[in-house]
C-alpha cells in the first residue's frame, strides 16, 4: 500500500492523470528532485559537490541492491565487484576517446549483460549459498587485475581525464559541480527506473517470488526468470554507479573495490530498510559521511591511526548486527504483516507454533519461511527509513 495515493485522495488538487499513472508520477518526482539537486549543487562548495557526486553514485548501487534484497529476497555481496566492472569499462573507453554518455551507457550495458548469467545462477541459489557465491565473486574478481596487468593496469589501475564541463556553462564552471550533475543525472535515472519497476506488474511478480516461492510458481510465475531480471537490473545499476565512480574519481584500481566495499554497501542497504528506495538514499548518506565523521571523531578523541582507520568498518559491522538483533521487524516489516495474516489463518494443532516461549535454552529448530499472500509493502520512496521506526 503506497502512501502517496492516500495523501492525494485526502484532497490535494492533483490532476487525475498524475494520480493514476505511475509513469507520470515518477517523472514528476524525478523532475522535482532534479531541480532541487540543481539548486543545492549551486550553493555547495567544491568539496561538498564532490560529496554530492559520491552520494549519487552510491545511491545507484544501493538502489539496485535494495531492490534485489527487498523485492526478491536475494543478498548479493558481489555488487562491489560489479561496480569494478562498470568502472573499468568506463576507464578503458575513456582512454580510447569515448564521450561521457556513451561510455556510461556502455558500462551499464556491460553489467546488465553480465548480470544475466549471474542472475540465472543466482536465481537457483538459496540465501546463504547466494551470499557465499557472491562473496567468492567479490574476493576473486579484483584479483583479475593482477592476472592481466597490461590490459587492466595491474595494482595501479587506470587513470582517465576528468570530464570537462561544456563551454556553454562558462569557463569558470567548477569541475566538481559538473561531476555532481553527471552523477545526479545517473541517480535520477536509476530512481526513475526502480520506482516504476516497484509499482508495475514486474514489481508485483518479484515480491510474490520473495514472499512465497512455492505459491508464486504455482500461480504460474516463472520464478527463475523474475529473479534473473531483478539481478540483472540491479547489476546494471551497480555498473552505472561504478562508471560514475570512475568519472568522478578518475582513478580505477583494484584497491578501490575490496570486499569491504561490498560489506559497506550491505550495511547501507540494511540501515535504510531492505526494499526501500528512500532507504537507499539514507544508506548513500551514511557511506559518504561516515569516513569523515570517524576521522573527526578519531582526531577529537586522539585515537590511534589503527583505530580511526578501522572505525568506519566497525560501524558497518555494528549496523549489520544491530539491525538484525534490535530491529529485525524493521527489516522484515513486510514479512511480519504476512506472518500476522498466517497466524490469523492458524487454527489447528499443527506442528508450527507462531507464539514463542522466551524461556532460556529455547531453540525451536529451523526458521519457517514466511508464507502468505504476496501483497507486502512495495519499495517506495515514501516508505522512509524503516529500520529505526519499527519494532
Amino acid at each position, binding site marked *: 500500500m503506497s502512501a502517496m495515493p492516500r495523501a492525494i485522495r485526502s484532497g490535494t488538487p492533483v490532476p487525475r492523470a498524475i494520480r493514476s499513472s505511475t509513469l507520470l508520477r515518477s517523472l514528476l518526482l524525478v523532475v522535482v528532485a532534479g531541480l532541487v539537486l540543481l539548486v543545492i549543487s549551486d550553493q555547495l562548495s567544491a568539496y561538498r559537490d564532490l560529496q554530492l557526486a559520491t552520494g549519487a553514485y552510491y545511491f545507484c548501487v544501493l538502489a539496485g541492491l535494495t531492490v534485489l534484497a527487498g523485492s526478491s529476497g536475494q543478498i548479493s555481496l558481489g555488487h562491489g565487484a560489479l561496480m569494478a566492472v562498470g568502472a573499468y569499462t568506463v576507464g578503458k573507453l575513456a582512454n580510447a576517446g569515448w564521450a561521457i554518455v556513451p561510455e556510461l551507457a556502455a558500462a551499464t550495458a556491460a553489467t546488465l549483460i553480465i548480470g544475466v548469467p549471474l542472475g540465472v545462477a543466482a536465481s*537457483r541459489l538459496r540465501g546463504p549459498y547466494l551470499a557465499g557465491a557472491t562473496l567468492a565473486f567479490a574476493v576473486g574478481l579484483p584479483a583479475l587485475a593482477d592476472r592481466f596487468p597490461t590490459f587492466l593496469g595491474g595494482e595501479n589501475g587506470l587513470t582517465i581525464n576528468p570530464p570537462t564541463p561544456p563551454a556553454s556553462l562558462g569557463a569558470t564552471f567548477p569541475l566538481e559541480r559538473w561531476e555532481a550533475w553527471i552523477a545526479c543525472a545517473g541517480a535520477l535515472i536509476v530512481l526513475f527506473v526502480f520506482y516504476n519497476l516497484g509499482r508495475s506488474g514486474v514489481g508485483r511478480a518479484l515480491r510474490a517470488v520473495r514472499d512465497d516461492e512455492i505459491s508464486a510458481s504455482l500461480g504460474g510465475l516463472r520464478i527463475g526468470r523474475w529473479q534473473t531480471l531483478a539481478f540483472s537490473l540491479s547489476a546494471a545499476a551497480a555498473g552505472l554507479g561504478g562508471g560514475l565512480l570512475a568519472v568522478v574519481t578518475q582513478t580505477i584500481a583494484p584497491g578501490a573495490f575490496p570486499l569491504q566495499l561490498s560489506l559497506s554497501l550491505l550495511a547501507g542497504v540494511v540501515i535504510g530498510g531492505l526494499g526501500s528506495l528512500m532507504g537507499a538514499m539514507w544508506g548513500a548518506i551514511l557511506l559518504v559521511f561516515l569516513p569523515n565523521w570517524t576521522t573527526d571523531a578519531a582526531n577529537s578523541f586522539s585515537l590511534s591511526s589503527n583505530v580511526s582507520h578501522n572505525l568506519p568498518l566497525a560501524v558497518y559491522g555494528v549496523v549489520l548486527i544491530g539491525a538484525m538483533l534490535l530491529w529485525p521487524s524493521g527489516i522484515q516489516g513486510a514479512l511480519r504483516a504476512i506472518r500476522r495474516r498466517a497466524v490469523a489463518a492458524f487454527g489447528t494443532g499443527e506442528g508450527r507454533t507462531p507464539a514463542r516461549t522466551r524461556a532460556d*535454552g529455547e531453540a525451536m529448530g529451523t526458521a519457517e519461511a514466511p508464507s502468505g499472500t504476496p501483497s507486502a509493502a512495495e519499495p517506495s520512496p515514501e516508505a522512509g527509513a524503516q529500520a529505526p521506526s519499527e519494532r
Partner: protein
Amino acid sequence: MTKFIDLTLNGISTGAIYAAVALALVLIWRSTRIVNFAQGAMLMFTTFIASGVIDGGGSYVLAFAVALASGFVLGAVVERVLVRPVENAPQLNAVILTLGLYTLLVAVAGMIWGNTPRSFPAAFSLRGYRVGGTTLLFTPNDTFTVLVVLAVAALLALLFRRTTLGLRMRAAAFAPEVARLLGVRVGRMLTLGWALAAVTGALAGVLVAPSVFVGPNNFDPILISGFVAAVIGGLDSPPGAVIGGLVLGLALSYVSGYEGSALVPLAALVILMIVLMIRPTGLFAATRERRV
C-alpha cells in the same frame, strides 16, 4: 612430473586446512542451520591472540592451546549472545548477522593489532622432505597439519557417534523441539556445537598462519575455500567436509600451479557454481531430506 607431484602434495596439505574450516561450517550448519560467514574472521581473531602470546614470550604449544581455548569461548559467546536471537528468524537475518560479525571482527582486529600482516611460526620444519636428490614441496609441518586435522575429525566423529553428549547434540540438531520434550537442554547443545566448531576453526587458523601470515583479511580466501569445500561435500555431512576439503585443495593447487595464484578465488567460485548447478546438496548428501 615433479611439478605435478609437488602440486598434489601441496594440495593435500592445503586441503587439510580447507577440510578443517569446512568441518567447522558443517558443525554449525547441522546444529543451527546457519552458514557462519564469520568463521574465517573468528579464526583470524584467535590466531591473532595466539600470535600475541608468542610475542609475549610464550611457547608455540602455549599459543596453540590459547588459540583453541579462546576459540571455544568465542564460539560459545557468539552463539549465546548474537546468534540465538536469529536462530528462529528467516535465513536472511542470520546471513546478514554473520556478515556483520565478520565485518566487526576484521575491524576490531585491525584496531587492536594493526593492518600490517605479521609472521607466525610453524610447529615443525618448513624444509621440504628430500627424496632421492629432489626436495619435495611437502614439509614435516605439512605432515603435522594433515595428521592433526584427521585426528580432530576422528575425535569429533567419536564424540558424536559414541558418547551420550554426542547423542544429545545430534538430537538437538536433528529435531530440536522433540529433543526438548525429551529433557535435552537444546540451547546448551547448540552453544556447545558452536564452541566446538570455533575450536576446529581456530585449529585451522594456527595451522595455516605460517603460510598466509596473520592479518585482518589474510584468512578471507580460507573462509571461501572452506565454504566451497563444505558445499562440495554437502553441508550436512562431516565426512563430506573432509573429502570436499581434500578435493578442493587438490583442484586449487593445480590451478595455482598452472594458471597462477591470482585466479584461485575465481577458480573456487567456478567450482562452487558447478557443484551447485549439478548436485546442490553435495556429493555426500543424506538421501533423506531433513524434516524442517
